[in-house]
């Protein structure tokens, strides 16, 4: 589902962020991405979501070679990749419902179908009763779950999460990770960047470790 072939990413201002990354993730895998901050975890995820392009090498996602993907195809690629961020990236002046509906609204889906799918997604993250609330009125854990609902509402085959539990206490973090496991069960491919090693070690999933832009360890599938 996700293939990295000899991928380099260099920023003009801070040098090499990734240096020669090779790996492959199969459909339906859940992969943790760990490493100290600045190791290149976010950069790697950003390459998959095509928020950035590699300086060198090939990234192939769901059969699409992102190197040759024309710019006007980027939106359609992003609809296939759900992204979750540490800071949630929610629209603070819109309701929970509107936030989750956004990926469907941009595809031009009908109102009725949007309502049905948004409620299904909110139900999955346990926030069905909060659809009218604005994000400000929610706790950090709830906001993150809204972000997750938004990422999965379009039923993308790939989910990426960048430090999704960075601001949450251990219990809430575990809840979120268990939620991710449930998506894996229905066939979604997930890559989760985190430095919560205790949690990663307790969950027994394939783990890639980055250090200074290089892949130093791959546990392989369990």
């Amino acid at each position, binding site marked *: 589902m996700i293939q990295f072939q000899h991928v380099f990413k260099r920023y003009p201002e801070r040098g090499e962020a990734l240096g020669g990354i090779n790996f492959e993730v199969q459909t*339906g895998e859940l992969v943790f991405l760990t490493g100290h901050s600045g190791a290149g975890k976010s950069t790697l995820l950003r390459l998959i*979501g*095509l*928020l*950035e*392009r590699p300086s060198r090498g090939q990234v192939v996602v769901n059969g699409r070679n992102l190197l040759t993907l024309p*710019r*006007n195809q*980027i*939106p*359609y*690629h*992003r*609809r*296939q990749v759900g*992204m979750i961020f540490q800071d949630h*990236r*929610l*629209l603070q002046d819109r309701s929970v419902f509107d936030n989750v509906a*956004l*990926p469907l609204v*941009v*595809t*031009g889906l*009908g109102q009725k179908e949007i309502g049905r799918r948004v409620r299904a997604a909110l139900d999955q993250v346990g926030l069905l009763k909060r659809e009218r609330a604005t994000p400000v009125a929610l706790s950090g854990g709830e906001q993150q779950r809204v972000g997750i609902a*938004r990422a999965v509402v*379009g*039923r*993308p*085959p790939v989910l990426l999460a960048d430090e999704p539990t960075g601001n949450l206490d251990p219990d809430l973090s575990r809840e979120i990770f268990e939620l991710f496991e449930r998506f894996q069960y*229905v*066939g*979604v491919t997930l890559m989760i960047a985190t430095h919560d090693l205790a949690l990663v070690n307790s969950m027994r999933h394939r783990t890639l470790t980055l250090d200074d832009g290089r892949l130093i360890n791959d546990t392989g599938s369990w």
Partner: protein
Amino acid sequence: MRKARTPKLVELPGIWLGQHIQTIVATLGRLMDSPLPSSMTMAVIGISLALPAALFVMTENLRTMAGGWDQTAAISLFLKFEIDDQEAGRVADEVKTWSEITRVHLITREQALAEFRDLGGFEESLDKITKNPLPVVLTIYPGPAHSSPEQLEALQGKLMKRPEADFARMDTLWLQRFQAILDLIQSGSLLLGVLLGIGVLLIIGNTIRLEILNRRVEIEIMELVGATAAFIRRPFLYTGAWYGLLGGLTAWLLVTLATLLLQQPVSRLASLYRSEFQLSGLGFAATGLLLASSILLGLIGSLLAVNRHLRGAEPG
């Protein structure tokens, strides 16, 4: 795992239309959410467009008024008093042979007197006069190729040199000058319209630019979840079109209001000149043109801003 359903081809036009209608309604809603800034922008655009529109209405009205007057170039040649109708007829026949003359109309002394009597107000004084005090007049019409002010002046001089001539008066030269002035004002108002149009373009462009900057975060998130460039641009373009339309309507309202206010005094003035002249406002075609160009200005203005500030999802 169910993949996201892609719409069937037959559904696409419906989705496209639905998205447009939704955006049209939503953008108007956004404008009404902040009525004060929206109406200020609207007023600025309206006043800018009202100025050239008002000038247009003014010149059109003056043209209609002038159109009521005889516009063919003519010279009235007043013959000396001792020339009688018969001799005048000979002069007329001779002048008629000149190459620059197409037609000569002879007004006998009797006809002139009758005409004078018809004008009214002079009956009593005329009754006291026993002898007809009016001379014979020849109205001389030159051909269209000989009707420029210079040619008319030359013709006037030529006629004055005749021994039978008392004096010759150009009836229509001032009218031609008036027409030329009208043309000048109309060209000026067109120029003013172009300048103010560019102003409107900049106002709308800047308003849209600020709107884009205000909604940066929202735009970024929409790009993140897979909104196409067209989807993100659409509301801004419609907002520009709305500003244009509302500004155009404001301009129309201003001009129409001014016309209504001036209707009464203009009619009174016209009646003093025994004229039926009525002030007319922006006609149907002119209103259409005003609204169409204001919408177009709105669209182009927002297009400029959008092209500059919204380039779609661009990976680094």
